[in-house]
């Protein structure tokens, strides 16, 4: 595969993954906060094609699980009553893209609820919560990265273009930011803001907090590019013809930074998704019952959950493809930028 092909491949992979969280209502079989109080902590139900007699069924089915009477950690399957999965069914109401009322789901069942990823302590479907949770976590990451890059671009461009004491001041300040442990910075910022807020405010709050933390690195990179770009002949020529600073920056210099920014974006998004997860994991993020990937994993803080309900770990595994996608795209982009000097930046500095 050519370089271009690989890039396209990663891009398509990511777009597909994002589709699941942009349209969670379609992919999730149930409402993420709907409680099934008779069925707390049910393990994932396995999808079968072969029944007990060994007959093949084209339509996949599951054997519904139930908690054993009086037990909270043992369940038994009902092999007498298989429940088959139907595709493109009408189910619970949801809003497509937050506005269009819709009822179509990718899959569902007729009566019995199925839990392909298990259920949590309230009997909520973990799979549905994963898709809806991704909406919060991924968008927090994407928006946060947007803010950070914008901040970084502004600071970096000003520092690089004007140089002198402005440059020194901004860069020393950014060094201060880099030297601070980011996790504590995150906590400190969060501590300044109100603890109890509605889900939507909480979301934007987190985005703002995350976005404000990571700007120093892209700013330094942008500054480097701007420094070299402003000495290019065509820039000097334009200046000679009397171009203003703003025109030079927008027309000639900043376009040079695009590849750096793109590469940075692919690194920052997963980092910031992780940041959101950390905050939510510690109860500082989006409040329950709104799911986010961090909220999904938060129950693992309890020892009893950790040793009893293994499927509570599964969301952590499902997140991996998203990260791989971003990192893959990132390294491809980096190769394009510097085809002779392949250097792979890892998550190491942040995570």
């Amino acid at each position, binding site marked *: 595969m050519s370089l271009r092909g690989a890039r396209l491949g990663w891009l398509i992979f990511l777009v597909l993954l994002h589709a699941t969280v942009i349209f969670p209502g379609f992919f999730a079989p149930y409402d993420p906060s709907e409680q099934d109080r008779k069925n707390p902590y049910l393990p994932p139900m396995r999808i079968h094609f072969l029944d007990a007699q060994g007959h093949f069924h084209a339509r996949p089915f599951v054997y519904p699980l139930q908690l054993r009477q009086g037990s909270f950690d043992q369940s038994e399957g009902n092999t007498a009553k298989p429940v088959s999965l139907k595709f493109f069914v009408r189910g619970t109401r949801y809003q497509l893209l937050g506005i269009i009322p819709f009822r179509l789901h990718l899959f569902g069942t007729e009566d019995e609820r199925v839990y392909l990823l298990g259920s949590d302590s309230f009997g909520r479907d973990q799979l549905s919560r994963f898709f809806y949770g991704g909406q919060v976590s991924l968008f927090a990451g994407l928006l946060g990265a947007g803010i950070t890059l914008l901040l970084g671009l502004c600071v970096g461009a000003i520092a690089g273009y004007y140089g002198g004491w402005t440059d020194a001041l901004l860069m020393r300040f950014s060094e201060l930011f880099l030297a601070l442990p980011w996790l504590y910075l995150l906590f400190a910022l969060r501590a300044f803001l109100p603890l109890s807020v509605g889900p939507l405010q909480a979301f934007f709050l987190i985005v703002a907090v995350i976005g404000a933390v990571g700007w120093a690195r892209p700013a330094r990179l942008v500054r480097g590019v701007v420094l070299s770009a402003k000495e290019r002949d065509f820039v000097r020529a334009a200046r000679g013809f009397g171009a203003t600073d703003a025109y030079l920056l927008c027309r000639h210099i900043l376009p040079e930074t695009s590849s750096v920014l793109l590469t940075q974006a692919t690194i920052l998004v997963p980092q910031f998704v992780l940041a959101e997860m950390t905050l939510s994991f510690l*109860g500082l993020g989006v409040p*329950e019952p709104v799911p986010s990937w961090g909220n999904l994993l938060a129950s693992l803080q*309890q020892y009893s959950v950790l040793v009893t309900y293994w499927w509570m770990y599964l969301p952590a595994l499902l997140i991996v493809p998203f990260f791989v996608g971003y990192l893959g795209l990132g390294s491809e982009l980096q190769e394009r930028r510097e085809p002779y000097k392949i250097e792979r930046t890892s998550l190491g500095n942040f995570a």
Partner: protein
Amino acid sequence: MKTVTAIRYHRQIASRLLLAVATLLAHVVAAFPQQKSSNEEFLAVPGENGHPGGRLVVSLRAEPKTLNPLIAADAPSREVIGAMQADLVHINRATQLTEPSLAKSWKISPDGLQYTLVLRKGVKFSDGQPMDADDVLFTFRVYLDEKVHAPQRDLLIFDGKPITVRKVDAFTVVFQLPKPYGVAERMFDGWAILPRHLLEKPYEEGKIVQLGTLTTPANQWPGLGPFRLKEYVAGQRLVLERNPYYWKTDAKGTRLPYLEELIFLFVPSADAQVLRFQSGETDVISRLGAENFSVLSRQQRDYTMVDAGPGLEYNFLFFNLNDPGAKTSAELQQKQKWFREVKFRQAVSAAVDREAIVLLVYQGRGSGLWGLVTPGNRRWGDQKLPHPPRSLERARTLLKEAGFSWSTGPNGDPALLDSSGKPVEFSIITSSSNADRAKMAALIQDDLKQLGMRVQVVPLEFRSLLDRVTQSKDYDACVLGVASFDADPNSDINVWLSSGGTHLWNPSQTHPATDWEAEIDHLIDEQMYARTFEQRKKLYDRAQELLWEYQPMIFLASPDILTGARNSVGNFRPAVLEPYVLWNVEQLYIKSGTVNTTR
């Protein structure tokens, strides 16, 4: 053959005789300490006969703040002090009845105003100094002193008049009450008798409340309890050692306590306590959550987990019913219009799924609540109190009657509107450190969503939550729990009385805000001074019914007391009253032949 049998027979007799003599000897030896000082009146307690030695390790959630019973208010301090101090009359935590302690007997005058207590002779403090009536007099003088600010002081004041204590002779004291008191001798439980010989001087100098810090030298803080201070390592542990002068014996006459040492480890998190217990670092565990209890039950090897049954903790939801003063925001005043509506509160109560709370929060190890008195309280529950199952229908009818209506929200869900067309939205605050209550709040949130109420759950740090409820009064609703320390209704008196500080929905009122609160005040006051149990019960039942009718507190559920102990711990009999596992600490012992696990 015959001779052989005969010989064998004789031998048997001989060995039996020998055994009898040996047993007799053992008895004599055991009785010896009693005979040596016949003026010591020991209290023999029933139970398994153990043997001396060994040590018991217990974990505490936090370091105790003090060892001084005059100022102790936190649970860890009370737990430690319980093992170091003794009271005049004690409530047996298992039977929930009173039994002699430092007072070997007592008499109540026919008018119920005079209690004559006869003290046990020959009792010594853990530094070897004798205890007599003067110590009792001194103790109550200190507790009653306003300058000392003992948290229990209010319990000794009746209608603004304090109890008076008089000495008859060195071992007889008379307590004179201004009014008859229904609780009777139960009121003497929990008043640690202080050593006058050591504390009189600091008391006169006004320094008594500064004493009893954890860094007190071991011999400077004697008590009458089974253990005395040995060593304190900041941030790690507190070690108590056997009080050699303790005044209880077992049935055989062996002086208690059996244990040589009682060690409290400071283990801050519940999960860490479970891990310590599992690995054998601690010997007993209590205050367990249901989930951790089932983890431990599943893996039990050398320990046994015991569900002691429903306790006295009651969890409830309440709304802010404080007077709309100048401080109250317009938004809250608007919401209070709903909260003040009795039918609104009844509807919320009808919509709450208590069964689900017991199942999901306590894994079935608890019971739903419809009143303040939990099933763990053997004598005081009102049997006539209804226990209606959850009914959304009834809730909707009640809301309709109160003028509420519904509209369809953007999502197709119903939204509840009040009579002026405002959507019903409020927040429930809960303590962020209590996962159980946070879960209850989440369940209530979902229950009320089905009525069309939009509820938000806001976890707050416990301090700031209490501050909001009792000081700034800036909240909508709150989920909280209270654990009564005794089964008697008077232990919850501050919840009942409208003037009480823990009358949570509207604390410390100067004048009862509603008629029913006035009636409850009256009933509770009356039962306090009623003479017989039947009279008190009748009055108390009526108060419970009023609470149910007006629902200022919407009761949710009560957890079982879940405990566990290593199999090597003898006499382990957990109770549902605090301290759940250490109430009979003087009788606990380490069984011989069992290796006291590695540490």
